[in-house]
């Protein structure tokens, strides 16, 4: 939804029934942290791809802001190189690039220095004049969280944040991590909301920009056959896995501060839990969808005592091992990681959602670094048939697997008769592969999310209460696992699916992780 009409406004007579989406209004995107990795690898390539797909208004500009000294031309040249390396569409189209680069500007300066914002404002005014960007601003905070308060205060002091009802929009996109615990998330939310209105804040979780994650909503709510069985009567348990082959890739300092719970569970994995478990929203709009997600988060049983954490949470840390045939060091041998570090690089958790639909159905979630392969999926395991007509143990329960990455798709496993005289069931798989069925290249998550932010659609962004509810769940776990009395994370060799204790977590319930 591009905008909400005023009550007395005549509806756009030419908009009704059009199949094409509306283009965003003219605007300037300001990237704070423009010399960083995210701007080079994701943001500018995503904006360029939006230009290739004719999704950007031509009245558009980008202003990069960071400490590094560049001229406009040098910055544009560096972005051209970044697009050439990281863009989804290559080679770079010189004609489109020429148009795109004509709107690229750069402001060098420290975020602590108010004159940086005076220069930024002058630059944006220049874009309004020369590129007709009309005073609309999208500020992208691609910077470490420690800079968010300074940036927001400076923007406000410089008068660069318009009120939400102004015809010239101001929106702020904030990258994760949004806080490092419940208290800091609340403090950050307070600060953000002193500066802007919630309608202007876009807290990004790039998992929500993935086609298959969005497809989960379509799968659940555009098909009538799954809804009747999507509950405690038919579902035995749910497994959510988000594993990576990679280690920490030189980001030891960041990882020591975050660990797997902050890096993956609080945001991406809990979002997958929400989308798997939520009730049907009353409408497909930002608040209706987010209202339902928050209900799931509030229904998740929090672990209030060390005993509850010990019973339901298995942290792990990778040691040396072998991944894809190559020897890799253990976490404690990585650069910038302290010897004897207690930071978990893996966690398995048994979650209980205490509501009418899911009570008694465990949601087992696990996420880790240095797993045997990259795999993110949601597996819904259905109950066994009540009577084993073809012999005890002959028919396996049905599984529905939603693969988020790689090989995005959905598989349904069911029993079929093996040809022959006897009735011997065997599990077969019916596979839907996203990439094969829809050969159109999917947009990158950042393309979708940047476009939504420019259009003002918050459906795929997280709301204040959602972030805080997720921190409440993860914060309680962190409080226990980070205390010195709690045992150190279980070691596991790199290239395995985590410590044996993670298997025991399910074995206690008579279940096992899916072999991926």
């Amino acid at each position, binding site marked *: 939804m*591009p*905008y909400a009409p005023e009550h007395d*406004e*005549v*509806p*756009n*007579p*030419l*908009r*009704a*029934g*059009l*199949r*094409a*989406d*509306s*283009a965003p*209004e*003219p605007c300037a995107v300001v990237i704070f942290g423009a010399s960083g990795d995210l701007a080079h690898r994701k943001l500018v390539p995503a904006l360029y791809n939006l*230009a290739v*797909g*004719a999704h950007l*208004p*031509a*009245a558009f500009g980008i202003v990069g802001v960071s400490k590094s000294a560049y001229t406009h031309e040098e910055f544009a040249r560096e972005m051209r190189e970044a697009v050439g390396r990281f863009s989804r569409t290559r*080679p770079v*189209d*010189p*004609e*489109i690039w020429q*148009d795109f680069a004509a709107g690229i500007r750069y402001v060098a300066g420290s975020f602590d220095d108010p004159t940086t914002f005076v220069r930024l404002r002058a630059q944006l005014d220049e874009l309004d004049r020369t590129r*007709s960007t*009309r005073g609309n601003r999208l500020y992208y905070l691609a910077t470490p969280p420690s800079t968010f308060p300074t940036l927001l205060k400076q923007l406000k002091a410089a008068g660069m944040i318009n009120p939400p009802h102004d*015809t010239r929009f101001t929106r702020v996109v904030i990258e994760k991590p949004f806080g490092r615990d419940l208290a800091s998330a609340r403090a950050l939310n307070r600060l953000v909301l002193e500066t802007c209105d919630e309608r202007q804040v876009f807290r990004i979780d790039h998992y929500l920009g993935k086609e298959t994650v969005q497809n989960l909503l379509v799968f659940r709510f555009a098909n009538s056959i799954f809804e009747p069985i999507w509950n405690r009567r038919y579902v035995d348990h749910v497994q959510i896995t988000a594993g990576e082959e990679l280690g920490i890739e030189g980001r030891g300092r960041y990882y020591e501060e975050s660990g797997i719970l902050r890096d993956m569970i609080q945001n991406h994995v809990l979002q997958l839990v929400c989308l798997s478990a939520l009730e049907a929203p009353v409408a497909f709009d930002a608040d209706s969808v987010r209202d339902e997600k928050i209900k799931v988060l509030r229904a998740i049983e929090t672990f209030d005592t060390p005993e509850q954490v010990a019973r339901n949470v298995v942290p792990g840390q990778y040691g040396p091992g072998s991944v894809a045939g190559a020897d890799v060091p253990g976490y404690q041998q990585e650069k910038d990681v302290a010897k004897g570090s207690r930071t978990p690089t893996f966690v398995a958790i048994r979650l209980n959602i205490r509501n009418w639909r899911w009570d008694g159905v465990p949601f087992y979630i696990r996420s880790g670094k240095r797993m045997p392969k990259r795999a993110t999926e949601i597996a819904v395991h259905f109950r066994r048939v009540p009577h084993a007509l073809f012999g005890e143990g002959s028919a396996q329960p049905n599984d529905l697997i939603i693969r988020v990455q790689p090989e995005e798709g959905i598989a349904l496993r069911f029993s079929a008769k093996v040809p022959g005289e006897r009735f011997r069931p065997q599990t077969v798989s019916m*596979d*839907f*592969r996203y*990439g*094969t*069925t*829809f*050969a*159109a290249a999917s947009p990158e998550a950042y393309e979708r999310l940047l476009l939504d932010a420019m259009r003002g659609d918050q459906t795929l962004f997280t709301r204040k209460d959602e972030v805080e509810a997720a921190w409440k769940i993860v914060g309680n776990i962190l409080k226990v696992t980070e205390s010195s009395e709690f045992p150190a994370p279980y070691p596991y060799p790199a290239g395995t699916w985590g410590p044996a204790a993670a298997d025991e977590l399910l074995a206690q319930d008579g279940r096992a992780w899916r072999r991926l």
Partner: protein
Amino acid sequence: MEEIVSDAYGEPISAGAAPHAGELTVKFENAFDLARIETLLRQARDRGGPSVETVCTLNLVAIHFSAAQYEKARNALEVAATLHPCRIVAVIADQGTQEESLTARLSVVRTGGAITLERIVLSATGRAVRHLESAMMGLLRPDLPMVVVWGGRPQGDLLRRVVESADRIITDSGARPPGYLAETAALLAKGAPIGDLAWARIFPWQSLAADTLDVPDLREHRGNIRRARVVCAGAVGAEGLLLLGWMQSRLKRLEVEIGAEGGADVEEVSSTPIPRAAPIGLGHVKLLEFVAPPATFTLRREKGVLISQVKGDDDGYCAHRVRLPPEMPGRLLALELKLLSGRDELYAQAVQAAAKLLAART
């Protein structure tokens, strides 16, 4: 200078490609043997391994009246089919050749380990063309929508049943003289589920016009649009009439005017592999102007870019510029295949209004 587009203006949906290797050709004596065709198709599928999956979302039926027409359309059909995995049943009814013959050509295409395209080309010449319809109907995959790509007009009773039982019929008014819009309007009035590549061609114009009226400072003009004018390249074409018909169906008491000037773009030979927007063809839209006094909204095409400008408004400025999507064979067909059944009401209303405009001009 304006001229009326002649009957030689266009042909069925076009784009050319050489025949593919690996195609199995079977000739039949008196009638098509459907069981044999299915068996051979299954063998073609199994050649990639015993448990190759097939992904299929629709039956795409293409009707042609000569082999040359089919070859011209083939690439566009297959590119669209990569975006909408399907079974293509192409029918070539060549009545102009005296000799009777029946031929089937079969092949499959694999993408990422799964079969995403099954291709059956049924050709008949002479009196044997009467067998085509029943053969084609027997080769449809069950339970899936049937979309017919229709390049011409029904010839007598031949293939009428196919058209009548289709979930959607996709035509290209832009490839025919604009007078045919009246015929389309009559079919739509009877409830025919017609789609149109000419309609898909004007999507960017519609979006830009709507986007311009969404600009906050310009929303005040929404209820006050009084006149609209379209200029086509060289001759009045179906796209221009549809665009104006759409405006008229959306806005009450709108005075409209359509004309033509200049000519089509001379097609440039692209020196780069990067696809560009299609050049302006004969009858394509060059300009749309609408007036909401005192403001005048002008949307014009300059090469691959659409530009909208507003004059007479207090703020007076360039409102929007959008780049037209690069033209690739099958792009418009793939867009139209996003709707697999039923009528596009907006299109139906636009065609009715366009037909009235045509009648008023003559």
